[in-house]
């Protein structure tokens, strides 16, 4: 690999785009290291996603699909590409933007502005649901109470439910999220490191929750994060689109079409652990770009018995949401918050409402350890 890379570096100046052989290459594609021009990049980027959608039968014509929109790069590009492909290949989808307001000052309020702009830009209807409305607590309130150690657990659990509830309110058939190849590779690694074989078997599925309230899929499963970052910075064409009964206007900004997205990290995102895995993947990508896809492939190929104990699906007694325990995780966490016992529900379930579950009544709740909190940005896979 190094030998061939060296060769192409020397010949770079005189080369043409290796896909069209006509235009001058402007970048080295992160996934394949091919030297390609701008036009070929969007073409191949969009076409690959289209192929993923088709080969995996992600959508059916006429479906109402909500795009989980955070205002970040993944969901912004997702919204753009999905509406573009929907038009170009006539998927026949009814697309919506669904955004969750966790109530994080200085982060979420800014990113929500971005989503609101996306709504105007793409003409996709937008629904915003806040943690305050749903649960009575904002993340700012939660952090004030519990500090910075397990805040990601709360946020992740609440957000997952919020997306499902929002999707139900909008009466959508499917939810799409912008999880990219890097995210999934990272999750595979983390599940190995944590010993979570059950999640390991599910986390590479492109569609999850088909037997639940709202199935959700990840069209960006094989799309590299780097490419998602590059994509919007290259577009510069002016488009007027129409989609069934909705008319879209795409506006250009200056001479580059910059898709408007919000690009800072959550102010509460912790260091360590998931950060190690992220760094490792970045280093790995530098050595061998295809390693990210190889991790996903390994995850898909792991020989995990189908009898691997999957939790039995029931409903939460308190709120009716899908749950494998008596109470769903969100209710357990909320109960803890409301009673001033913020450690409830963190770590293994011991005692409490769900403590009646056979194998988990071993130690008292106060002994709960907080090391294994789910990290920011993760939805349970």
């Amino acid at each position: 690999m190094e030998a061939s890379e060296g060769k192409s570096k020397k010949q770079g100046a005189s080369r043409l785009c290796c896909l069209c052989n006509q235009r001058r290459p402007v970048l080295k594609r992160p996934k394949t290291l091919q030297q390609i021009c701008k036009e070929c990049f969007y073409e191949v980027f969009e076409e690959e996603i289209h192929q993923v959608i088709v080969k995996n039968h992600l959508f059916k014509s006429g479906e109402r699909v909500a795009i989980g929109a955070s205002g970040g790069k993944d969901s912004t590009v997702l919204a753009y590409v999905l509406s573009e492909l929907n038009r170009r290949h006539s998927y026949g989808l009814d697309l919506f933007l669904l955004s969750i307001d966790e109530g994080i000052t200085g982060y979420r309020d800014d990113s929500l502005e971005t989503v609101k702009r996306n709504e105007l830009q793409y003409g996709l209807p937008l629904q915003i649901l806040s943690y305050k409305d749903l649960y009575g607590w904002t993340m700012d309130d939660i952090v004030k109470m519990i500090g910075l150690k397990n805040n990601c657990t709360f946020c992740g659990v609440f957000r997952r439910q919020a997306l499902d509830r929002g999707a139900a309110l909008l009466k959508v058939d499917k939810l799409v999220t912008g999880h990219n190849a890097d995210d999934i590779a990272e999750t595979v690694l983390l599940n190995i490191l944590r010993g979570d074989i059950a999640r390991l078997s599910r986390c590479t599925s492109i569609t999850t929750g088909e037997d639940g309230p709202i199935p959700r899929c990840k069209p960006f499963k094989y799309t590299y994060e780097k490419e998602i970052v590059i994509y919007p910075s290259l577009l510069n064409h002016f488009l007027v689109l129409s989609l069934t009964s909705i008319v879209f206007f795409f506006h250009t900004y200056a001479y580059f079409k910059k898709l408007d997205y919000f690009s800072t990290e959550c102010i509460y995102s912790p260091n360590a652990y998931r950060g190690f895995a992220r760094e490792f993947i970045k280093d790995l990508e530098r050595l061998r770009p295809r390693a990210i896809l190889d991790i996903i492939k390994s995850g898909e190929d792991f020989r995990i018995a189908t009898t691997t104990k999957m939790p039995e699906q029931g409903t939460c007694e308190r709120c009716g949401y899908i749950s494998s325990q008596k109470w769903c995780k969100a209710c357990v966490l909320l109960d803890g918050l409301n009673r001033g016992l913020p450690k409830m529900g963190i770590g293994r379930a011991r005692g409490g409402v769900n403590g009646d579950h056979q194998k988990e009544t071993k130690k008292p709740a106060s002994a709960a350890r907080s090391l294994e909190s789910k990290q920011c940005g993760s939805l349970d896979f």
Partner: protein
Amino acid sequence: MACNSSGCESGGCYGREKENGCKVVDVKETVRLCVKCKSNEPMTFGDGGSDDGRFCAECFRSNVYGKFRLAVTSHAMITPSDNVLVAFSGRSSSRVALQFVHELQVKALKNYEASRDRSLPVFGVGVAFVDESAAYPSLSGGMSDAIAWVRSTVLSLSPPEKDLHVVPIESVFGSDSVEARDRLVKLLDSVSDETGKEDLLLHLKMLSLQKVASENGYNRLVVGSCTSRLASHVLTATVKGRGYSLSADIQHVDARWKVPIVLPLRDCVWQEITRLCHLDGLKTVELARHPQSGINDLVSSFVALLQEENPSRECTIVRTAAKLTPFYFNKIPETDDSCVPMATQRRLKKFNLKYDGSMTTEAFCPICNGPLNGSDSSEDESDALYDACCSSCRFQILPQEPSSLDHFGSLLPHHMISQVKHHQKFDSQTYLREKIKDCLLLDDEEAV
């Protein structure tokens, strides 16, 4: 009574109760005792690792040896009629493996000499050392000294006597050392990926061990891989897309080879092994390590980082991988061996420790011997070698230019290439037909 103060680690702290019920620790009276036997003073290794200062020397040693023995007996790794070859690199892990196997053999000899009917023979032990200097010229400087040291170490481990086999890695190409070296160098030069090169050498190393084992009548190959090594392997396999074959590599027994491989130290961590070497004064030799570059090195650093953050991470990684379904060959194969003592045979049958050797349902990659996943089969059947290999070897070992594949195939050792021909013959449809043809009523021409 157990003391609740956080500074006290041992079970023998003497506290005095105050009137209000709080315990007060009288530091002068604190005696630290081994947490297991509660009689001896615990060992401190001072290596900054976990569990330091908890066990006395005897208990520590018996913990580690106990894990070895449990692995050997519960997986029927070594039985009285076996002839075992220990792969010895001179480093800590294989040094401990050699030491433990020797102790097991000494005990068996003692029992044999003490028994009246002498019904259970003593298993044989040999030692193999692979000389990789042809692949890594930087090693050749210290090699003769290293070999001399290995020889004297093996000599010191008798009785019972053990044969030493020094195996040059190029011996997979044949016995003519000059030609073999030449072929090895040519093969390695044609692999452009650094990680691919390192991995190819590991495969060649295993082939050379298999060769010396089968040529000298050994029926077991002991490899000293410990938990820590396997943890790195789990991650390297994952990042190279080898998720399907991973579960084959990390079990206690790997019988897909002609001479089954056993891993008796699989449940011991690196820290235990280095501490044991220190404790028992087991000398090791560190050859100037060829610098690992590429992915293997990156993963080792990553695992080291994770270990620092949580000392039980390696164990968790291997435990996760152990939950993957192993293959049928991850058990000792059934052999119609009349010299296996009846008692052993009964025991093996009772605990279902063997598998029926005729059950070959997997195809294997000719280079890495990894079981092939159905999804690995290539779409165009242009080149036999390309088709036969797994996707990982295709990417990192085989040349990228299709025109170079033929030439590359000619550089591979005979054993690997013969696997390709075998793979070609493995046409599942024909194979199944062969198996059931006696029951078929239709002629070939009439067959659907």
